[in-house]
């Protein structure tokens, strides 16, 4: 299972980012979300979302094996074991592996909680195999 996005349906509202930060950090802060929104305005006028495909490349390069599989079959970061080496960041083909030390003392990524899908009103996000 993984998260999918249809960019044509995204309206750029960022509800997904708030829901994501609330799940990952128990905080309201869209800068601490595990999805990325790239608006292309004023032209051509399209939104581009980047989401985790659960490819596992991050887990394969993690030297402390901090990126593990959860009960949903998704890779998540075990915060206690992350040493902030950032090896995972350049490996992510979608640029959705995050280390921002000014915001958190561990890496973070999508753990497939589904909260972003729950709040998306336009059906731009969904979970499937």
């Amino acid at each position: 299972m993984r998260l999918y996005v249809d960019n044509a349906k995204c309206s750029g509202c960022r509800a997904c980012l708030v829901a994501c930060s609330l799940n990952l950090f128990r905080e309201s802060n869209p800068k601490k979300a595990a999805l990325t929104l790239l608006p292309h305005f004023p032209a051509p006028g399209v939104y581009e979302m980047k989401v985790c495909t659960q490819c596992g490349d991050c887990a394969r390069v993690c030297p402390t094996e901090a990126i593990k599989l959860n009960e949903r079959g998704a890779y998540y970061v075990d915060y206690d074991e992350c040493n902030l080496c950032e090896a995972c960041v350049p490996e992510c083909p979608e640029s959705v592996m995050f280390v921002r030390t000014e915001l958190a003392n561990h890496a973070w990524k999508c753990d497939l909680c589904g909260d972003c899908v729950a709040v998306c009103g336009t059906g731009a996000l969904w979970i499937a195999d």
Partner: protein
Amino acid sequence: MLNGYGGSILRVNLTTGKISKEPTPPEVARDFIGGRGFGIYFLTKEVPKGTDPLGPENKLIISSGPLSGMLVAGGGKCDWTTKSPLTGGYASASLGGLFTAEMKYAGIDSIILEGISPKPVYLFIDDNKIELRDAAPYWGKGTFEVEKEFKEKFGEEYQIAVIGPGGENGVAFAHINHDYGRQAGRGGVGTVMGAKKVKAIVVHGTKSVPVADVDAYRQAGMALYKACKEAEGLKEWTRYGTTIVVSWCDEVGALPTRNFSAGSFEDGKNLYGTVMREQIVITDKGCFGCPCPCGKYSSMKRYGTHVEGPEYETIGMLGSNLGFTNIEDVAQANLLCDDLGIDTISAGGVIAWAIEAYTKGILTKADTDGLELSWGNPQAVFALIEKIAKKQGFGALLADGVKKAAQKVGKGSEKFAIHVKGMEQSAYATHNATAMLISYMTCDVGAHHNRAWAITYDLQVGRDKVVPEKVARVIWLQNFRPMFDVLGACRLQWVELGIDRKLYEPLLQAITGIPRTWEDLEAVGNRIWNLTRLYWARENEGFGRAWDMPSPRFYEEPPQSGATAGQITRLEDVNRLLDMYYEQRGWDANGMPTPATIEKLNLGAFVS
């Protein structure tokens, strides 16, 4: 720590360059909650009586609310309050988009701009790094170019609010543009920012907003989203946004046509939401956290341009009200206004007045810099929009707004200057819609629809009825609906999707820790409404009943065609509406809150 708030008020004294922060006063948060509540509080308390709207003593107060930027369906509203250069009274404009959330995440509830900068500047906010920076390279440029330059310079996470040449040049109805197409549109808030020599505000915030009960917050937030997603009207509403009502207004005679001389447009079908969606819309564009985005982003092949919109109001004011018959022309006029930094509603109102004056021979080519004005003439309108924004020639006359332009021109043109209190009426024709008429007459910023959108209620209960129940409905709407502007959220989830408003109560409580029912919130709304009325009276000698009168067009000139042909509200009924309204509000016959009302609402401290 104030749960649900950024926690600080940012003051920027542009005269001295001093920047300071103070904690958001808990008692102000308790009594006025946020957004438009903070706006009127600071305006009344801090801006002296008789202040020149364009002078250094006026302030521009920009406020988010406790629901802004949170897990709230539609938490993207930002209030811009000031003393209006258009009306000389209270101005409070609502900005959608992403700006309000970014302010909160930078830890700021209100930005208060004071004084006048000696040179053009922009305010740069990156969490705690706050600076005034030189705006010389940006001064004179359109809003889109400046926003794009800032996005490229700082990054997509930065949010930008910017004025155009209209604000720089002192057009009385200049707006603030944000996110390539969202505006704080009405009352000249952009004019005040321009007078202060502030070209733009750039904001970026990475802080988390504290909440009282994170689990309850998540649960209540999710419940609100779930209700929106399950709402029957979600799909249809999201497909068309506010343009969904163009056809309805045309059918019931509420679509402003040729300067509100009628309420149905014979070519209206070309401007319907269905036509627009098929012909020009390329994507939906939502404000922060919105599951049902009304924003439509369009591409105009005829012009090779893009614009957010047009929305219903703009289709009315720059479409049917000018006799336009092609949606791309409307969208292009919209784009010009957005880029040049002027309000589409007021621009449409004052241009329609000019066209009518020209067709009646009151204005001639000698007055209009050689422009031939006629209905359905996009090229002339595009030229006028540019002249207004630059205050060039004939444009300088229109740039003061329709009330002053008509006073200057005279010759009976005052009769078809469609405004209340100097604010051009937004896009609902009110020849025979008495609830909507009294709503416009008593709206606290001038003839604007958003406080009490009562036109559907007119149709529901009998449009020509003049009964206390109608007035009561308008008063309830005026107390209730603007509370969304206080909370920093959008009302359309309630209006358009019919979401149970009770869902907001546990959400607000989980965020702020303070239990409040809608009845409590409506009491705050009533208090704010009365305070804005007192502000008008404080600032305007002789303020009272006469200021609430609508354009004579709605009680003297029945439309000749369309759904409301031959229909009119009699002057006697206009006055009856006002009598009922004042009585129910606890105001005297001149429309002033009585001493008993002031005491009951505990507003004595605000009356000197």
